[in-house]
């Protein structure tokens, strides 16, 4: 099975359209759709964030996202469709950095699979964020 059969994954520098994302995963056999939306927060470790800058290794990030989709399909075969979009570039407070949508016949697996997708994407996809503060900037998690 190829991820293309049931997954839509994208790295983009354009704003994420959540309604279009939902349209990507809607399926007549599915009554449950879980969605996770990660937004830019105005603070980090006690400092005021002015904006974020996301960078990706796009070819590899997309490959990882396809692998995550295949893992999900093998762990939860009832998953019908999954879509994952991650934004790159400069993002203002409140903008959507990542959105993931999963459809399943019933709700429990939708929540579980969506949670697994965002957790695994965050820990494995080669994507980085730079936090830009009032008085400087830092690549998140870069330094021990």
């Amino acid at each position: 099975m190829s991820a293309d059969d049931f997954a839509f994954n994208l790295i983009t520098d354009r704003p994420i359209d959540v309604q279009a994302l939902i349209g990507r995963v809607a399926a007549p056999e599915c009554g449950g759709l879980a969605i996770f939306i990660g937004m830019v927060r105005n603070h980090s470790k006690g400092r005021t964030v002015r904006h974020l800058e996301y960078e990706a290794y796009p070819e590899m990030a997309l490959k990882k996202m396809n692998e995550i989709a295949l893992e999900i399909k093998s762990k939860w075969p009832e998953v019908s469709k999954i879509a994952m979009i991650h934004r790159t570039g400069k993002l203002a407070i409140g903008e959507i950095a990542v959105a993931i949508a999963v459809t399943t016949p019933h709700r429990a697996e939708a929540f579980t699979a969506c949670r697994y997708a965002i957790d695994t994407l965050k820990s494995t996809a080669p994507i980085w964020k730079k936090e830009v503060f009032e008085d400087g900037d830092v690549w998140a998690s870069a330094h021990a």
Partner: protein
Amino acid sequence: MVKVTVKFFAVGRDITGSDELMLELPEGTTAGEVLIQVKQRYPAFEKVAALLVAVNLDYADTATVLYDGDELAVIPPVSGG
């Protein structure tokens, strides 16, 4: 000799000042040996937490042997989402 492209991202690109460099390496050179060379050339990498390497778009063990045309990426701690 084998020609390998080494790619840098995020803090790695800031440290090296470039997106990528081309290396000509003796046959049998491993990903880990390239990482050691990179750290010697750019000592600021020593301050970066847990560097990983990817070879041809997959995370790779440092013992992975590199072949002509391979793309090695230096992966600093990821922070997407």
